C-alpha cells in the first residue's frame, strides 16, 4: 500500500464515525488551544519587554538599592532587632531600607561608575497651565525612568533643563472640546509652559516653571503614567519640599541610578562590589526580567495544565481507536487475507491517530490564534481596559512555538495510536474474518 493511500484511507476512516472522531478531537483541541494561547501570551509579554529594552537602547545604567529592600539582606529572623540609630533614620515611611549619602559615595567610588544619581520622590500639589487652570499633581515619575519611557510625541526632558513630560491622558487639558484624549493631537501640548506647585515642610506653597517637551504613554512597568520632570526640575522641587525647617536631616534615597562604562563587561564586577557593601545593583533588564519571570512562571503552569489535558485526550484516542479496531475486525482480517502486511496495518491505524491529532492541533491552534488576537485587540485597543498601557502586546505570533505545539500533539497522538494499532496488526486473519 502506498503511503499516500495509507494517509487517504486513514483520513477517510476517521470520518466514518464523525461524532466519535469529533468528540475525541475536541479533547485535543482544548489542549492545543491552551498551549497556543499560553505561548502567544508569553510571546506577547516577552515581546513587550524586549521592545521596552530596545527603547532603552545603549544606556548603561544600573539601579542600586539597599539589599534588604530587595529581600536580599542579611537574615535577621523574626525576633526583636537591636536598635541602630543610623539605620533607623534611613528607613522610608514604608519601613523600607534606604540608601544614605555615604552609600551614594561608595557607589560613585566603584570602578567604571561614571555618575550616580540618587532617586528621591517629590510630592507636588498641583500643575498650573499658562491659562491659569490648576490640576491635582500628586505623583511624579522619577527622571531615571526616562530612557524606558514610551513617548507618543516629543522627547525625554533634557537633564539640565527645566522640562517635563505629561501622560497622554492629560492631553484634554489643551483641547477642552475633545471627549477623549485619543482624539487630541499630542503635538499641541509640546512647548506649553506649566507651573508646578509644591509645599515645603511648613506648608508654604512655591511654584516652579517648566516646559512640556514630551507626551508619554503608560507602559507595562507603569512608567509614563504620571508627568516626569527632568533631573534639574526634580532636584529643584526636592529642595523646596525639604526646605522651611531650620534642621539638618540626613538624606535618604530609595534607590540610585549609576551610569556605568561598558555595562556588559563590568556588570558582574559592579554587582559583586555592591553586594559586598550591602547593596543590590539591577539593570533595567533585570528589573523587567522580574516581570518576565512571573509571566514565564504563569506560562509554565498553563503549559502544564495543557499537557495534562493532552494526556487525558491521548487516552481518548486510545479508547476511540480500540473501539474502531474492534468494530473493524473483519475488515482488518480481509485486508490481511488480501495480502496487507502487519506493518502496513499498524501504519494505517497509527496514521488514523495522527489524523485525529492533526485535526485537533489545526482546530486548536486556529482557535487559539483567533481568540488570542481578538482578545489582544479588544483588551489593548484604544477602548480596552488595558488600552492605556503603552507598547503592550498581550498576544504575539510565535511560529517556532506553534510548530513545536503541533509536533508535540502529533507525537502524543501517534504514541496513543500505537497500542490500538499494534492490536490491529496482531490480529489473526482467520480469527478476524470469523469475528461477528
Amino acid at each position, binding site marked *: *500500500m*502506498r503511503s499516500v*493511500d495509507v494517509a487517504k*484511507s486513514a483520513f477517510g476512516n476517521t470520518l*466514518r464515525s464523525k461524532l466519535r472522531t469529533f468528540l475525541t478531537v475536541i479533547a485535543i483541541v482544548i489542549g492545543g488551544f491552551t498551549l497556543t494561547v499560553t505561548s502567544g501570551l508569553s510571546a506577547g509579554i516577552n515581546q513587550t519587554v524586549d521592545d521596552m529594552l530596545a527603547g532603552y537602547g545603549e544606556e548603561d545604567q544600573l539601579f542600586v538599592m539597599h539589599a534588604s529592600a530587595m529581600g536580599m539582606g542579611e537574615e535577621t529572623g523574626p525576633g526583636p532587632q537591636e536598635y541602630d540609630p543610623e539605620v533607623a533614620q534611613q528607613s522610608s515611611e514604608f519601613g523600607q531600607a534606604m540608601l544614605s549619602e555615604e552609600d551614594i559615595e561608595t557607589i560613585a567610588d566603584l570602578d567604571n561608575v561614571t555618575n550616580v544619581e540618587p532617586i528621591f520622590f517629590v510630592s507636588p500639589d498641583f500643575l498650573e497651565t499658562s491659562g491659569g487652570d490648576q490640576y491635582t499633581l500628586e505623583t511624579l515619575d522619577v527622571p531615571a525612568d526616562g530612557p524606558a519611557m514610551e513617548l507618543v510625541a516629543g522627547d525625554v526632558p533634557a537633564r539640565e533643563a527645566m522640562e517635563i513630560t505629561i501622560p497622554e491622558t492629560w492631553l484634554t487639558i489643551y483641547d477642552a472640546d475633545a471627549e477623549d484624549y485619543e482624539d487630541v493631537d499630542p503635538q499641541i501640548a509640546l512647548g506649553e509652559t506649566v507651573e508646578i506647585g509644591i509645599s515645603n515642610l511648613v506648608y508654604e506653597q512655591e511654584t516652579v516653571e517648566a516646559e512640556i517637551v514630551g507626551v508619554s504613554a503608560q507602559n507595562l512597568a507603569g512608567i509614563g503614567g504620571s508627568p516626569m520632570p527632568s533631573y534639574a526640575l526634580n532636584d529643584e522641587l526636592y529642595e523646596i519640599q525639604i526646605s522651611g525647617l531650620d534642621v539638618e536631616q540626613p538624606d535618604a534615597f530609595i534607590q540610585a541610578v549609576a551610569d556605568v562604562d561598558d555595562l556588559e563587561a563590568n556588570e558582574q564586577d559592579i554587582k559583586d562590589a555592591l553586594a559586598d557593601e550591602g547593596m543590590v545593583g539591577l539593570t533595567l533588564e533585570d528589573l523587567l526580567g522580574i516581570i518576565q519571570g512571573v509571566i514565564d512562571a504563569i506560562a509554565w503552569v498553563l503549559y502544564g495544565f495543557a499537557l495534562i489535558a493532552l494526556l487525558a485526550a491521548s487516552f481518548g484516542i486510545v479508547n476511540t481507536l480500540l473501539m474502531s479496531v474492534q468494530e473493524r475486525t*473483519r*475488515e482488518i*482480517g*480481509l*485486508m*490481511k*487475507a*488480501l*495480502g*496487507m*502486511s*502487519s*506493518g*502496513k496495518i499498524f501504519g494505517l491505524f497509527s496514521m488514523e491517530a495522527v489524523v485525529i491529532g492533526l485535526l485537533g492541533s489545526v482546530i486548536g491552534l486556529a482557535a487559539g490564534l483567533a481568540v488570542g488576537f481578538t482578545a489582544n485587540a479588544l483588551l489593548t485597543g484604544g477602548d480596552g481596559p488595558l488600552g492605556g498601557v503603552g507598547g503592550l502586546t498581550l498576544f504575539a505570533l510565535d511560529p517556532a512555538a506553534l510548530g513545536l505545539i503541533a509536533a508535540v500533539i502529533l507525537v502524543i497522538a501517534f504514541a496513543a495510536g500505537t497500542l490500538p494499532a499494534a492490536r490491529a496488526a496482531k490480529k*489473526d*486473519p*482467520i480469527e478476524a*474474518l470469523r469475528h461477528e
Partner: protein
Amino acid sequence: MSTAVLETENLVKVYGRGPAQFHALKGLTFEIHRGESVAIVGKSGSGKSTLMHLLALLDQPTSGVVALGGRPVSRLKPKAVSSLRNDTFGFVFQQFFLNPNQTVLDNVTLPLKIAGVGKSERNQRGIAALEQLEMADKAKNKATDLSGGQKQRACIARALINNPDVIFADEPTGNLDSATSETVEDILFTLHQEQGITLVVVTHDEDLAAKCQRRLMMQDGLIVEEQTGATPRPAQASAVSDRQQPENQTRRGRRLPFRRGGAK
C-alpha cells in the same frame, strides 16, 4: 499432466495443547494442478476450512509442507507470504466481506491498493473487472446497496482484479438463493475455463462440488475419498472440453454466459 500449483506433504494441523488437543488435519498429501478445479467437500468439523486456510497461506501447519509452484512456503517471512497472497490468490467468501462504507469500485480495487498500484490504474482495472461481471453500472454505488448476487459478483471481481493464479472460494453460494447460486457458479466456472484460473472451492453443497473436476471428500481431518470428473447436470451438458480432463467436462457456448440476469 500439467505442473502442480499447490502441493502438500503430510500436512498436520493441531489446535490446542495437552488433553484438549484437537487434530484438525491428520497428515494430508496431495497436489492441485495448474488450471484445475478442485472441490474440498466435507461436513462442518471435517477440517475442510482448516485445509483451505493452510493452502491459502492464511495459517501455518503444525507440521508438513505447503509448496506453491514447487517452492515450500513454510520458511518465508510473514511479509513475503502476505505479498505472495496478494499476487497469486483471489478470495471469494461466503459472507462477501465488502466494506459497506466504500463504493463497489473501491471494494473491488482493494487488493490493488494493498499491492501499491496507483489510483488511476486501479480504477481502470477495477472498471474492467466490473465490466467483465456486468457490474460496471454499479461501480459508484455503496456496497450496501447491492443484492446478494451482486455482492458476490463484486467479490468475484475483487478476487479477479490481481489476475490471480488461484481463486479460493469458501462456500461462495452459501448465502445465496438457488437461482443466484447457479449464476455465481456459472461465473466462477467460466472464469476457470476461459482464463485457466485454478479454482479451489470449499463447500458442503454437493451440486457445486459436482461441477468441479476433482473432489476431495474430507472427514475427521483426512481425505477419505477422491473423485474425478465433473458430473454435469443434464440441462447444462452441451459440449465437452478438450482441456486437462476432457472426458467429462462441461463447456458453455458463450464467452460471457452469465447475462441471464439471474443474479439479483
